[in-house]
């Protein structure tokens, strides 16, 4: 029941929990498979490195667990990248929900990581409405998901990339909704209402 935040070796899970509390939701931070499977909603947060995180998840069978979830699942930041099929970061095989690869931003003399507030240039799907086009949300990442069939929002940094994705019951954002002011709260609350 309720919302489960998947606990694993990733940074700053606490801020996701705090953001949900501000929206009146008491989530459970857990790595218990049964608690995750029986939750109404699951959040898969993430800050960290792809290879070590995938290794951690695989050793505990959590990659298969996430892939098999039927309720709405929201991946955040590294969470979105790990839900893709493969990442250029340390040549890492990922969970494979979104059939696309994750790439490193090209070296074009611009700062990497892409860090700070950037715009949602276009949006679609259940987490967004048209009022969110042009809103600024907070990013910290060096790898990106190219625009593909599952793209739900597009942002531009050197090139257009997937700032959010959706496929069936799986949702993901490259930005941190928990740190993105009012637009972030709206997106989180849209997820909670699914």
């Amino acid at each position, binding site marked *: 029941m309720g919302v489960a935040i998947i606990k694993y070796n990733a940074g700053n899970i606490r801020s996701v929990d705090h953001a949900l509390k501000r929206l009146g939701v008491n989530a459970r931070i857990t790595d218990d498979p049964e608690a995750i499977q029986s939750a109404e909603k699951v959040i898969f947060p993430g800050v960290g490195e792809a290879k070590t995180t995938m290794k951690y998840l695989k050793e505990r069978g959590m990659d298969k667990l996430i892939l098999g979830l039927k309720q709405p699942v929201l991946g955040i930041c590294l969470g979105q990248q790990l839900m893709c099929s493969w990442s250029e970061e340390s040549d890492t095989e990922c969970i494979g929900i979104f059939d696309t690869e994750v790439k490193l931003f090209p070296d074009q003399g611009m700062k990497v*990581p892409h860090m700070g507030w950037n715009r949602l240039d276009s949006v679609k799907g259940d987490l967004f409405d048209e009022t969110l086009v042009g809103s600024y949300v907070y990013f910290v990442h060096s790898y990106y998901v190219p625009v593909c069939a599952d793209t739900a929002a597009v942002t531009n940094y050197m090139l257009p990339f997937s700032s959010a994705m959706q496929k069936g019951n799986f949702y993901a954002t490259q930005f941190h909704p928990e740190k*993105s002011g*009012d637009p972030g709260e709206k997106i989180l609350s849209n997820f909670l209402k699914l």
Partner: protein
Amino acid sequence: MLAKRIIPCLDIRDGKTVKGINFENVVDVGDPVELGAKYAIDGADELVYLDITATHEGRKLFADLVLRISEHLNIPFTVGGGIDRVEDADILLSAGADKVSINSSVVRDPGLINRIARAFGNQFVVVAIDAQLKDGRWTVFVNGGRIATDKELFGWAKEAQERGAGEILFTSMNHDGTRNGYACEALKELSNQLSIPVIASGGAGEKEHFMEVFEQGCADAALAASIFHYNEIPIPELKEYLKKNNVIVR
């Protein structure tokens, strides 16, 4: 396009916000959580909280404060002050901090940058550098600008980047507290030499200074304290001004 960031900085002593001039003469300017929440509503893009407490009790108060800040704030925040070990950073991360700012401790022990970056990621590590220009050389200082070191700004910033810093926060001691503008030349040079974002600090007094630091100084973010604490430049007014002058802000 990525927006330029405006970052109010709050110095904390024994759980309260204080402001010093030229690293000295501190006065109390309000509750850190309330002040931070007000800045977030006003449109601040990020906040920096620096703990200037020297005592063990003060440190404990600060960790409790970080937890309260994280509960209330819906924008990112960085915390710094007295982070000497990976464990210190871990406590602040667990309390909900998005980044840590490390300064004197990594001048003494540069390997600490690598260790914190390895444990929590580069994005978590802001290396803060206080430096003073004298006879054409930017000398790095530690202990809140009190002790000169043999390090030089640009070399040290590059080393910090190579060791895993995610951002550099550069305070010009020549400009800090003067309100005559940021150290734009040195900032531009830093930005050219580094591939990670640069946060400018020290010297903000007028709205024009922010435009200069973004356009001439090529800074990714600008930090200021007193002009925001005393509401001399309200953040919404500053953002409006920057937008009118074609600086991309949120």
